[in-house]
């Protein structure tokens, strides 16, 4: 451990391959300098798994006995399970014992546990899941990728500000271009929600580029941030994952030696795209894909550590302050204190 180490709480019981895959990924991640992994789960189980890998005592373990099943209602399950791994992991962040938390388990449960435990940044109604897609001309941030099925225009405005702040730090784009996902780029396109949101985004302190189509996520030459409601964003993300799987299968069938071509598609795989940041909570929360393998788990830990170092959360908080100021001005509260 070093003074500058980033401490990442990792859900031992989250993911299709848990707990074995999680431990394997944790050991890979912990080899990187400046990263400490805290396994969150049953201590006996963690000890046995580490011992079996010749790594007894190599990682700190935080006790947590319960897990949330993928089929459970996230809110009810998290409410009922105080000792669930996702709750305990978020609690470590809240209490300053970890700098970030990672889980590849139920996305809904982790989002809910994070909000219940950490709360929300001022100005944030609901946090959004931000995914960085490796597009042709450079990465694109897509959000919301599934945290909020139903959204209003104000919520989409929040996503836009948070996503832009994320792109500044994560993608190194000083003035990221932001687009609103719609069914066409012409101003007359979109449903009532998109039209209202587009008018709002045009007024926010953003480099707003208007409507974009889903191809903007994969080309990367139109905008740096694509804003969507969580339902549409999730459908798009799953579609991208499906297309990757289809392309992979097609190559395997068509080529005599498809290994190079298939490996070139790996960055677009479900277990790679699944490493996503929850933007809007006062803590660094990374959501891994359920099908994550050890390398993907390690990549999630890496994303968490980098996000802490890049101060993503404080930058998102600063961006949201602009929205708070706007709301207060609209309510005639400009210059007034909150109390």
């Amino acid at each position, binding site marked *: 451990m070093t003074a500058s180490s980033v401490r990442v709480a990792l859900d031992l019981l989250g993911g299709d391959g848990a707990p074995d895959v999680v431990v394997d990924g944790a050991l890979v991640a912990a080899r990187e300098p400046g990263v400490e992994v805290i396994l969150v789960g049953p201590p006996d189980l963690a000890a046995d798994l580490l011992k079996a890998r010749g790594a007894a005592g190599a990682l700190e373990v935080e006790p947590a006995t319960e897990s949330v099943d993928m089929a459970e209602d996230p*809110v*009810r399950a998290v*409410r009922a399970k105080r000792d669930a791994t996702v709750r305990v992991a978020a609690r470590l962040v809240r209490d300053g014992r970890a700098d970030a938390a990672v889980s590849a388990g139920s996305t809904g449960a982790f989002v809910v546990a994070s*909000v*219940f435990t950490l*709360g929300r940044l*001022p*100005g944030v109604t*609901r946090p959004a899941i931000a995914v960085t897609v490796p597009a042709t001309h450079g990465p694109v941030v897509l959000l919301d990728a599934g945290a909020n099925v139903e959204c209003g225009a104000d919520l989409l405005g929040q996503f836009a500000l948070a996503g832009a702040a994320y792109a500044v730090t994560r993608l190194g784009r000083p003035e990221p271009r932001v687009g609103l996902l719609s069914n066409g780029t012409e101003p007359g396109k979109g449903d009532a929600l998109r039209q209202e949101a587009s008018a709002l985004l045009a007024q926010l302190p953003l480099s707003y580029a208007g409507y974009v189509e889903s191809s903007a996520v994969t080309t990367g030459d139109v905008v740096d941030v694509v804003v969507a409601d969580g339902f549409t964003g999730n459908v798009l993300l799953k579609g991208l994952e499906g297309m990757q799987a289809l392309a992979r299968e097609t190559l395997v069938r068509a080529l005599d030696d498809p290994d190079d071509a298939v490996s070139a598609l790996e960055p677009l795989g479900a277990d790679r795209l699944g490493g996503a940041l929850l933007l809007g909570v006062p803590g660094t929360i990374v959501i891994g894909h359920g099908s994550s393998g050890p390398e993907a788990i390690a990549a999630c830990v890496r994303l968490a550590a980098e996000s802490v170092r890049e101060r993503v959360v404080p930058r998102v908080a600063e961006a949201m302050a602009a929205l708070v100021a706007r709301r207060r001005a609209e309510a005639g509260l400009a210059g007034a204190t*909150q*109390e």
Partner: protein
Amino acid sequence: MSAMGKASVDSPDRDQVFAVVRDAVATVLERPPSSVTWDSDFAELQADSLALVEVAEIVEERLAPYAPEGFHIPDEELEQLRTVGEAVTLALARL
């Protein structure tokens, strides 16, 4: 934590529980605590079901020191709440 410290185990009175609920509502809905009254209606405050659960989570945690056996507001009862006063009454009954 609220003004009520963890060391105390005396049952909180109505005013203390109201203060906890009021602060939780103010935090979740980003409103000045002074704007949240006993009669404040959750629907008028635009508190959706998830916001109410967030409020319950905060209230449960802050009142937990007064309930050694555990303090939990069942979701079924939470869904029936209409006002801040009703939430205070429910919390007092559950403590």
